[in-house]
């Protein structure tokens, strides 16, 4: 947040379509229905490459649903229907020729509740690589080490790579999940409240990690914690009951939002 100087914000467009420098994820009039009820209403927003974008808003506002549109995890729910388009790097990910497996390789995800597989630490990180055909042992070992180092877990686990991932603490498990996600070198990492179940210390480590990771990855994070959004994100989108109310530089959202609703939410007047 401190990197972004105020004068730049002053020239930024105030509307929900304020485009970051390099458009990468383009969401175009996206609506999503669970059966008959409309969970996302005509959302259009463009997210930039190698920046952190935070989705904030009260519970049930659709931020997690929108996040799950970006790697098509909503496909798993039978009753979901989607209108509109999501383009990543110019390609419509809901197009007829899209391979969902390939998409999920490019768009990784970290979940709210850390969910390491009941395998060893090593096998957790190697899982995605093995899925995508990496068999060479030294190649696997190198990739596992690199991912664990990038997720700031290597020093803590290097001596027990082959013991169970379930023996790690909550914060370590979540960093392992991040390592597992980045092991297959996605372009985008989606994070669904990755620190909401962690204590403040573990949360701080995850936040540091996110700031480190944005050098290499595009990050979209859903969070309930407004200070967290302010600390780690470059851009923030505020949602309310399925609508995108405001999207802008994070500093602008938190200091001088264009909409009254946004201001009420970020100042804690509701939500």
């Amino acid at each position: 947040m401190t990197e972004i100087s105020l004068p730049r914000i002053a020239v930024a467009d105030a509307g929900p379509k304020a485009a970051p420098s390099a458009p990468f994820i383009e969401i175009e009039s996206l609506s999503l229905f669970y059966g008959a009820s409309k969970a996302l209403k005509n959302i259009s927003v463009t997210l930039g490459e190698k920046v952190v974008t935070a989705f904030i808003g009260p519970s049930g506002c659709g931020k997690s649903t929108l996040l799950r549109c970006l790697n098509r995890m909503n496909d798993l729910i039978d009753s979901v229907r989607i209108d509109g388009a999501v383009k990543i790097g110019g390609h419509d990910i809901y197009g007829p020729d899209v391979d969902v497996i390939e998409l999920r390789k490019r768009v990784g995800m970290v979940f709210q509740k850390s969910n390491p597989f009941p395998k060893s630490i090593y096998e957790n990180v190697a899982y995605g690589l093995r899925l995508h055909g990496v068999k060479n042992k030294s190649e696997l070992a190198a990739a596992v080490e690199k991912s664990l180092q990038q997720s700031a877990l290597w020093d803590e686990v290097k001596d027990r790579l082959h013991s169970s991932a379930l023996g790690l603490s909550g914060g370590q498990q979540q960093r392992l999940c991040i390592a597992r996600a980045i092991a297959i070198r996605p372009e985008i990492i989606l994070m669904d409240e990755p620190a909401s179940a962690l204590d403040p210390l573990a949360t701080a480590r995850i936040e540091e990690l996110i700031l480190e990771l944005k050098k290499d990855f595009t990050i979209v994070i859903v969070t309930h914690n407004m200070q967290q959004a302010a600390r780690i994100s470059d851009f923030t989108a505020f949602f309310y009951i399925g609508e995108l109310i405001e999207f802008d530089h994070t500093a602008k959202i938190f200091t001088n939002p264009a909409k009254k609703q946004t201001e009420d939410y970020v100042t804690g007047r509701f939500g």
Partner: protein
Amino acid sequence: MNKIQGRHFRAEKFDFWSFFFSGLTGLATLLILGILATILINIIANGCQGFSWHFVSTIPKKDFFDIKTTGVLPMIVGTTFRVLVMTIFVIPVGVITAIYLTEYAPSNSFITRIIRAAVNNLAGVPSIVFGLFGLGFFINFIGKNLDVLLHNSSAVWGQPALIWASLTLAVMTVPVVIVATEESLKAIPPGLREASLALGATKLETILKIVLPQALPGIMTGGILAVSRAAGEVAPILFTGVAYYMASLPTHLSDQFMDLGYHVFVLSTQSPNIEQTRPILYATVLVLLVLTFALNIVAIIIRSNIRRKMRSLH
């Protein structure tokens, strides 16, 4: 102040109903334990007389009512094999059905509910009905047609056989495996499936690499329950494979076999001299109990090994 609190929290009077009901539950438990103990003690005490190495390792002559010459080796072999062959069929079918129901079938659709109801009803069908089904379907339909297809001059498959008895038992016990597997699949956190899918795994890869290894102990439990149920069943094999007497051990899936449970029935209804047969009868029942117990123990040891491996690692 202490005095006031003490008076306030002291039980005011003897609570008759809570005493009565806790006593009732205790009595019910004791009754069950008492029945079990009576059966076991009776069988072990009386069964030991006729029990010997000779008894379990001998193929008896035609007159198996004489304690000096009889044995139960063919029955042990027959019962063991029909249970093992059943397991080979029932586990894959039960597990695959359970996977379909929990992982693929739309969870609340009409058809899924029909299938679940059918599985539950199958578990409630009397075992003699399975025996008749086995005779009609496996022997008279599949077996006879197999003989026609293979141009067998005499009935090879179209008659009671080990394979048909085992398949009949498999049909009878498949609901047990389905239900146990379904329970263990449902107990796996959905987050693990999501994590795997989000890494670009297909549904099949997720099931094979994440879901099934986790469900293995539950599947084993289903297998153990199926084995326990099948080992002592007589009715389903009555028309489908069991023999009153065979001079040699079964060597082929199309052979008939002798069986411990059926032999108990034979000894207790066909004996010319009840007093003389009684020690044999007791010893045979003891062998049946020990065998069932042993089959269970083997499965339980395998399961605990899997659990230990899962905890300590792959």
